[in-house]
């Protein structure tokens, strides 16, 4: 009996893990295909771990939502705001202060970047706050 219980327990544990939150679900479905599960990106896709070096710079908060991958994601403003709060906390080291709201995200999506890479270099060169 105890062996059967142990086997049942093992089989339960062997089930694929469930996405813990809607934020993680949205990340897996909308970001991880290119940025990969751990955010490291590839030859052609920027690493999300590099968000850390922008985190103290002015303009970074807005830039992160305006990049094509975030701004054009097929998510509502509220879901994108939730995803960005989760993503910034995970990859930039600390959660955004204050947290993104659906209104702010909606506004930022409305003004897309013409040249995301140029904008990133501009922010990187600026003095830290």
């Amino acid at each position, binding site marked *: 009996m105890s062996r059967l219980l142990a086997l049942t327990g093992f089989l339960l544990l062997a089930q*694929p*893990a*469930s*996405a813990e939150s809607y934020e993680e679900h949205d990340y897996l*479905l*909308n970001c991880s*295909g290119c940025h990969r599960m751990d955010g490291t990106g590839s030859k052609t896709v920027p690493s999300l771990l590099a968000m850390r070096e922008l985190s103290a710079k002015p303009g970074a908060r807005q830039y992160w939502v305006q990049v094509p991958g975030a701004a*054009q*994601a097929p998510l509502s403003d509220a879901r994108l705001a939730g995803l960005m709060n989760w993503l910034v906390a995970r990859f930039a080291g600390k959660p955004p202060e204050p947290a993104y709201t659906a209104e702010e995200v909606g506004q930022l999506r409305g003004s897309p970047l013409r040249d995301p890479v140029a904008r990133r270099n501009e922010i990187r060169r600026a003095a830290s706050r």
Partner: protein
Amino acid sequence: MSRLDRWFEGMTRQTARRVSRRNWLSRFGGVLVGGAALPLLPVARAAEKHTLGEDGVKGREGDPTRCEYWRHCAIDGFLCSCCGGSHTACPPGTAMSPVTWIGTCRNPADGKDYIISYNDCCGKTFCGRCMCNRNEGERPLYHWYRNNDINWCGGAATQTYSCSTAVVVKVAKEAQPEK
């Protein structure tokens, strides 16, 4: 050696004495024809539907070598399980691309939606077997976010596409909203 020869000779002679050739031929023929006809019976076809396949799913939806396999719902490419690999591993000589098309499929066995990663295998010329183009949840190119007509081998060491896998990432919170 001669002892083995003698033993075999004895055996064959004994069999020849006991069994008539026509009797043997008719029985053997019966087995051949009957065996070939068995899958045509409705009983066999009904049984196919109930054999447990991969992931506890019955029938064709549980067979990773078929396009109907439940994980293949958003796939566009050759199935690696027909190309010397499996639905989770690349065939020898190819490498899995790190960037990938991702979607959700419903597992008919438990009714849950799963996040599936269709990692392409790259490095050899295209496999050409088991083309499967279901593309559920895919959108035209102007919705670039939900279009999979991209060479996902772009992130791999070599850009030659060979075939596609279907790896379960996690249980999804909901089905892909575009479906």
